């Protein structure tokens, strides 16, 4: 069986974001990058299936982006992916989800993948489009937001998470694509021996120009902070003083303390 997991590298979201020169995305200077949280669940699920199926199964991890994304790829390899594809693109942030999906689909075409895992959304762009669009472009069966996964004999049984904690149980025949939600599993931390082993795994580099055929369907015209609604008070300073201020506010503004 051939498995693929698509990962994106995103900035640490506790960072402070500033617009880039064109004012349409963030400036990358001073940002630390890591694997998109949703994709960690996707990698873990793919690795678990890879382990369950054993010999004869191959798990590839794919990421589109500049050279820095190799760090995220290495993590996925250390978690247990067999090999990797780095689609080199220094202008990835200027592409829309349709183009990102098309690049992935063009790569996948003709390679007989049975099952593709993606995150349900990326934390920086958060469009929740790439996975489903890839499935649609390839004609794969697809379900989204999974919090439960099982595979046997060409059939995926997945649990979709719905609002309010209700779940929907779905069966799909391969070839299929699933988008993974937080809490699907417990992503492993790569161990030192596995990090060492991963260094010998193959990373195939492909220039994005070889795979990009689709045009942009949407453009971003601005990247900016939300308009401040105001109203709230911001307290900063010494912890002792902060506590006194909060106690005073609780007494003054709420019926919680007297």
């Amino acid at each position, binding site marked *: 069986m051939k498995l693929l997991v698509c990962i994106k590298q995103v900035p640490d*979201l*506790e960072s*402070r*974001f500033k617009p880039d020169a064109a004012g349409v995305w963030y400036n990358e200077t001073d940002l630390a990058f890591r694997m998109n949280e949703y994709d960690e669940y996707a990698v873990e699920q793919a690795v678990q299936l890879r382990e369950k199926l054993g010999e004869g199964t191959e798990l590839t991890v794919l990421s589109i982006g500049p050279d820095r994304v190799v760090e995220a790829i290495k993590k996925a390899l250390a978690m247990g992916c067999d090999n990797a594809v780095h689609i080199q693109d220094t202008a990835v942030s200027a592409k*829309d*989800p*349709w183009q990102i999906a098309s690049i992935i689909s063009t790569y996948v075409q003709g390679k007989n993948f049975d099952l593709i895992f993606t995150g349900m*959304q990326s*934390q*920086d762009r*958060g469009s929740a*489009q790439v996975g*489903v*669009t890839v499935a*649609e472009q390839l004609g*794969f*069966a*697809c*379900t*989204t*937001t999974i919090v439960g996964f099982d595979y046997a004999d060409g059939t995926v049984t997945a649990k*979709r*998470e*719905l*609002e*309010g*904690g*209700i779940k*929907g*149980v*779905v*069966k*799909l*025949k391969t070839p299929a694509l699933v988008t993974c939600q*937080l809490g699907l599993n*417990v992503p492993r931390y790569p161990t030192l021996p596995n990090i060492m082993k991963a260094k010998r795994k193959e990373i195939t580099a492909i220039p994005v120009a070889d795979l990009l055929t689709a*045009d942009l*369907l*949407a*453009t971003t015209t*601005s990247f*900016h*902070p*939300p308009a401040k609604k105001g109203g*709230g*008070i911001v*307290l*900063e300073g010494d*912890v*002792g003083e*902060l*506590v006194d201020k*909060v*106690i005073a*506010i*609780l007494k003054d*503004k*709420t019926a*919680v*303390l007297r």
Partner: protein
Amino acid sequence: MKTLLIGEYREGKLLDSTYELFGFAAQLGADTAMLLVGSDAQLPAYGGTLYLADASVCGEYSPDLHKQLILEAVQKENPDYIVFVHSSYGWDLAPRVAASLKVAQVSEIVGLVDGGFEVGCCNAKMRRTVKPASGRGVLTIQAGAYPVLQPGGSPAVQKITAAGGGSLEFVGYEAAEKKDVDLGKAEIIVSAGRGIGKKDNVPVILALAKALGGELGASRPVVDAGWVEHSHQVGTTGQTVSPKLYVACGISGAIQHLAGMKKSDFIIAINKDKDAPIGEIADVLVVADVMQFVPALTAKVAR
């Protein structure tokens, strides 16, 4: 300008979020038609054209069939925009429709600005303005971002149907886990977020909850990591709460968390990041290390 609004129906009921679509269309100043895979017995209070497919025939979750139905209505209506709620139904179906039509999708819209759509990004800390390249597009609106608007009246129903197997089989629903705590009735909730750092720190947050006479709440990562039971989770996939006081400890303020607690009377957030989106709705944002501030506050409250 014309919109085709896609209503939502689950477990035999029209979902209230359907009316947020009318709220959005009104702000857009657009004409509307609606499509619903639902039932005769649950028609929306809306006087316009309603393309109605029977959910007992077409399924409540059968994306291939629902896509076919939508494409059929698009043929008839030729709308500029096809609009979904950004929900488990909408984010699943919208990209399929957009891909079939080869038009842009804009996800999780929170606002309208000079011919473009404003959407959140970077965990709700920032915004982007997005414009579809062609005049047409598939849109999803952020749940709760637009007012519920009931246009009133009875729809002019046009029945539609689709056939075929589809590429997946819907087996059924699984009910939400039983809750051992009803946070909905709590007057004071102190919630732990990922910012508390580790499971060992949960008792520190619980101690403040106890000192204030309240209950312990939690954000999703804290529950997913097994630090706190799911029954304490606040948010779209947890509980919706409206206490007199909500204290958010190390919680960034993602939309799915806010959806569960924004109706609280008074909100205090403790976060080391002054820009955390929780600051948008907090009455008081305490910029501090949660593990330094919370024990100090508990000590004073307990006194």
